[in-house]
């Protein structure tokens, strides 16, 4: 695959653009999901993603994350070693329970880790009962 791509880049800009459109790999990012008393927290590793390239959509019962990685194909001269998928889109879908309040969602990214906090509905929040 790597070899093929290098060959194509030599054919000129048109071929590169075509190649870019055709072979965008969809990658499922790794995620940690945990819950606190009043929220669900999702953390996703999105290396190579800039803040403005993330599309976070929430609707009742479903949350989707889509993030494009800026390809760096054209600047390469000769690939000596390759492990990073060069042209990819991160995509992942999460199902939300009825206790997730989709009006209370916050997200921020730091060092390519996207943190999404989804508040729980009032009735779903853990309540600490005082001992009489």
């Amino acid at each position, binding site marked *: 695959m790597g070899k093929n791509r290098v060959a194509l880049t030599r054919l000129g800009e048109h071929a590169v653009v075509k190649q870019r459109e055709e072979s965008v790999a969809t990658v499922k990012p*790794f*995620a*940690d*999901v*945990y*819950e*606190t008393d009043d929220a669900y*927290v999702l*953390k996703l*590793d*999105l*290396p*190579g*993603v*800039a803040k403005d390239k993330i599309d976070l959509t929430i609707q009742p019962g479903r949350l989707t994350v889509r993030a494009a990685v800026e390809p*760096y194909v054209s600047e*390469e*001269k*000769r*690939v*000596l*070693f*390759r*492990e*990073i998928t*060069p042209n990819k889109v991160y995509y992942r879908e999460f199902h939300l329970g009825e206790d997730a309040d989709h009006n209370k969602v916050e997200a921020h990214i730091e*060092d*390519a*880790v996207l943190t999404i906090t989804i508040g729980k509905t009032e009735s779903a929040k853990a309540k600490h009962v005082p001992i009489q």
Partner: protein
Amino acid sequence: MALVRWTPSRELISWPTELVNIQREINRIFEDFFRGDLMDDGTFGLSVWTPAVDIAEHDNEYVVKVELPGVSKDDVKVTLESNILTIRGEKKREKETEKDNYHRMERMYGSFQRSFTLPSTVRADKIDAVYKDGILTITLPKAEEAKPKQIEVKVK
């Protein structure tokens, strides 16, 4: 052909030694497994993290990219020793919640180290490393003698 008196005890001693060894080995494996060493000392599954690396060669430099999401740039160390580039560091787990509250735990943590032998000499004093959007980019300019040279040959 000499007749040897059959002593059942000798057979019992001679051939089972193999079996005893195997038995001992199996016991050891089971003990290790059920003692929970693999799971509980916190290293299992953590030490296996190897961040993905790309290395590209340009005319005048090598460019190394490392995927390091969630790694603080202060926790990354890049060294060069006689043409061997080493990237080491640690991805620290954010201590925010009890393990019991986890629904999924896929992201990997822990220390990593990767070393690469560069194909030609680089200018150690001109190495540049930038961390942005979870990607560490190291630029290593080639030493003068390693750059491709265009030599004009006079045609007589």
